[in-house]
């Protein structure tokens, strides 16, 4: 048995690069998130939205990947926002302190507003 595969896709709305994340956000699968982040960064993204699915499974390995992305985002002076998380994982992200570096929004619309 493996973790459910992760599906990553990249889209763009105006000047915001959106990384859509669906599936298991774990240390191994999360490498795909890191790759997507590197790709949009190479394309010059300054505003990045991580768009999760409410049914995503996120474990501490995946959280480590996201902290890595937040850390690189800070160094690259990028603004990173998050949406789509279940209320449980919004709480988890607050608990680990990730929300000090990335803001969580209740919807894509609110996340894109005044980015």
């Amino acid at each position: 048995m493996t973790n459910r595969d992760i599906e990553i896709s990249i889209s763009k709305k105006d000047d915001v690069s959106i990384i859509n994340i669906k599936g298991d956000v774990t240390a191994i699968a999360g490498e795909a998130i890191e790759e997507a982040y590197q790709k949009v960064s190479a394309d010059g993204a300054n505003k990045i939205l991580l768009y999760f699915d409410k049914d995503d499974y996120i474990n501490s390995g995946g959280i480590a990947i996201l902290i890595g992305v937040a850390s690189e985002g800070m160094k690259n002076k990028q603004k990173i926002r998050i949406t789509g998380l279940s209320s449980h994982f919004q709480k988890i992200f607050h608990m680990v302190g990730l929300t000090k570096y990335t803001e969580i929004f209740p919807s894509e619309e609110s996340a894109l507003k005044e980015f």
Partner: protein
Amino acid sequence: MTADKNIELHIPSVMGYEKIAMECAASMAKKMGFTEDRIEDLKTAVAEACLNAMEHGNKMDTSTKVGITLTVEESRLQVTVKDEGKGVGEIVSPSIESKIEGKDKTRGWGIYLIKSLMNEVKFEPSPEGGNVIKMIIYLEK
């Protein structure tokens, strides 16, 4: 439901199998009347305990098992996760600031999440060898 009912399962030290333990614990918690929020807390704690056992206790040796025991009492559920090896991973409190600044590796959140989400957590060696994490979640009325 009568008190002191035990349910045991054993999963291989293969990432992904922690989901079985998660769903088993969630199913029991739902039966006991836990809220959805606390069931999600339990699932995350069980997942992290299993992953810790696989990685740090059993060193991802696929020939080893992680044992999970659910002990049902009237107003609480105890979940015990046991590995066959040594080591429980880091118990120090992680600092996101250190990790963001690159002073510390980004991993190391498992134990912190377990302790934050469960009402009681104990780490102890198993009499048969290996380590045991005991987690207790209270049923709030």
